């Protein structure tokens, strides 16, 4: 029997029984859709989280006071960490060459008010480099002035949403005066909205010069030092050098350096494991579909006993009968795989048109795996019925 004839014969048999073939296709395609779509969602979530970290800017290192140490001092009992000071930030800038920018940050929560309109927000004392380091942009006005870090100035850059709330109805914010706590400062710029970045709503915040903030909050320590490392430098070595400089100044490691890469990397691993777990759950439905195929093929074999008997009488051997029924199982599962894949791709495109930021395109490996597994499932569960058909006694089969 020629191969083309075998497939044609199998296809003909499948087309003859449309309802049964259709239901089988439905089962397999639902299974494949589930696998492909769920892994697509998982991968999409992973990329989304990755993109969020990317939007922070690359190669950022956060330094904050205190050291996460199991045998660290108990709160209030001596050993209180030294503050990170402006001098520390300066030392880093002076002594570690590979650093692109060093941005001191002082943080406080303050009421910002334009006459009777007021809003409690985070007001950050920092330098003009903050905006670039965090990937932010101004929509109007100018950035904070380049000042000596120890000098303050009564100016503020507002987050976009904050500006709209304090100056509603198209009133121009830049050039006006607002109150921050009990001080009057001039609005010199407004930022574009960039959504929430790691817990900080960039729309609802204000930026003022770092010295102004420290005197306003009456603080000598910084909340964070944000360091941007040059693109072509070795992050680990640079961080080690920074640690050395600070150790020399503090005499102990009472600060923590956290690179953005380490956080993003571990999150990405977690998301990939989650994706695999989702794929595993979805493949249960593929297995169910495979059992469905087996069931349907077994019914088909019993119904076609007399046909099998005839084929044997006409000179078809065991192998040929087996081949025909296997071909039917393979055709159903491969077609179901392709249909399921098409549905999954369309669904992920629809999803993307509704949530452009969330790219749920299935990864190539899940597409290959789904097609491979569905065809494998079809063949696997097709073997038993096909064997049964090929072992029928032709005399008995012809009589039925």
């Amino acid at each position, binding site marked *: *029997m*020629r191969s083309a*004839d075998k497939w044609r*014969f199998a296809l*003909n*048999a499948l087309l*003859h029984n449309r309802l049964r073939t259709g239901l089988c296709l439905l089962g397999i395609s639902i299974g494949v859709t589930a696998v492909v779509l769920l892994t697509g969602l998982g991968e999409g979530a992973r990329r989304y989280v990755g993109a969020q970290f990317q939007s922070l800017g690359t190669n950022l290192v956060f330094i904050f006071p205190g050291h996460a140490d199991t045998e660290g001092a108990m709160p209030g009992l001596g050993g209180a960490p030294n503050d990170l000071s402006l001098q520390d930030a300066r030392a880093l800038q002076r002594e570690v060459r590979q650093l692109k920018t060093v941005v001191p940050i002082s943080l406080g929560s303050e009421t910002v008010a334009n006459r009777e309109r007021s809003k409690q927000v985070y007001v950050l004392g920092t330098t003009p480099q903050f905006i670039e380091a965090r990937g932010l942009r101004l929509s109007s006005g100018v950035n904070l002035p380049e000042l000596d870090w120890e000098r303050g100035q009564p100016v503020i850059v507002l987050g976009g949403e904050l500006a709209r709330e304090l100056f509603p109805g198209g009133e121009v914010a830049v050039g006006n005066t607002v109150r921050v706590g009990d001080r009057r400062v001039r609005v010199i710029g407004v930022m574009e909205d960039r959504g929430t970045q790691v817990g900080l709503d960039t729309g609802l915040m204000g930026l003022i010069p770092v010295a102004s903030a420290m005197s306003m909050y009456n603080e000598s320590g910084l909340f964070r030092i944000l360091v941007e490392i040059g693109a072509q430098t070795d992050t680990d070595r640079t961080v080690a050098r920074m640690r050395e400089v600070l150790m020399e100044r503090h005499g102990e490691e009472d600060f923590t350096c956290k690179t953005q890469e380490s956080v993003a990397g571990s999150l990405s691993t977690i998301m990939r494991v989650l994706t695999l777990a989702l794929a595993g759950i979805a493949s249960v439905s593929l297995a169910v579909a495979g059992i469905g195929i087996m069931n349907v093929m077994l019914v088909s074999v019993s119904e076609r006993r*007399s*046909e099998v*008997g*005839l*084929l*044997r*009488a*006409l*000179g*078809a*051997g*065991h*192998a*040929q009968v087996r081949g025909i029924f296997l071909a039917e199982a393979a055709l159903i599962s491969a077609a179901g795989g392709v249909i399921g894949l098409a549905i999954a791709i369309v669904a992920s495109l629809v999803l993307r048109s509704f949530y452009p930021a969330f790219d749920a395109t299935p990864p190539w490996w899940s597409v290959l795996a789904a097609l491979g597994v569905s065809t494998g499932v079809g063949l696997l569960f097709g073997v038993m019925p096909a064997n049964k058909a090929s072992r029928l006694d*032709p*005399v008995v089969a*012809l009589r039925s």
Partner: protein
Amino acid sequence: MARVIELRGIRRTYKMGDQELHALADLDLDIESGEHVAIMGPSGSGKSTLLNVIGLLDRASSGRYALDGRDVTDLSDEELSEVRQNQIGFVFQSYHLVARLDAVANVELPMVFAGVPKKERRQRAEAALQRVGLGDRMHHKPTEMSGGQAQRVAVARSTIMGPSVLLADEPTGNLDSVSGNRVLDLLQGLHRDGLTLVVVTHDPAVARLADRVIVLKDGRLAREWRGTDVVSLDQLFELDAP
């Protein structure tokens, strides 16, 4: 004359619980090339079992069987399939056409398993259907044909590979006399062209056409008539009487 079928000491037993049932018991039978043999006998006499053993659908429990001078007793299953494909044609009482295939495709089936190319298959199948008078029914499905037409398709299919012997099991059993006679004419025609014919039947009118009538009883050869004897035999009718 060459001997097409040579059966020696053929025995076929079935196990029914503790009992052994002898469907065929020590049967010897020779059929010459070009002979037309009818097998008769009451139900359960072993007629169908004999036909299945000759057709290599069933294996004898013991004894030897030579087809066209070749001992086929110990062939493997795949070898038997090949012998069936090339040397044996079957015609069944209930036609056994594949319902989803049209007449041409049904006649093509044996050639499909033999690996004959599609174009040649089609030509040969169409020619065979012309010969059985169904040139205008080529693309009808079995459900769109009468019983007589369906059986003629089956006859065309059984001879398409040019077999050594044609085995027919009650070929007119499901047909009215007019359609039945057309089928019998067809078989007679094939016989005149030199085909060896073995027909199992209850119907004395069918058996009378044969050169030889064999009557089985309890798996043994009970009686045998040859040549002109057959045509005038009234005993045949008595055989079927209860």
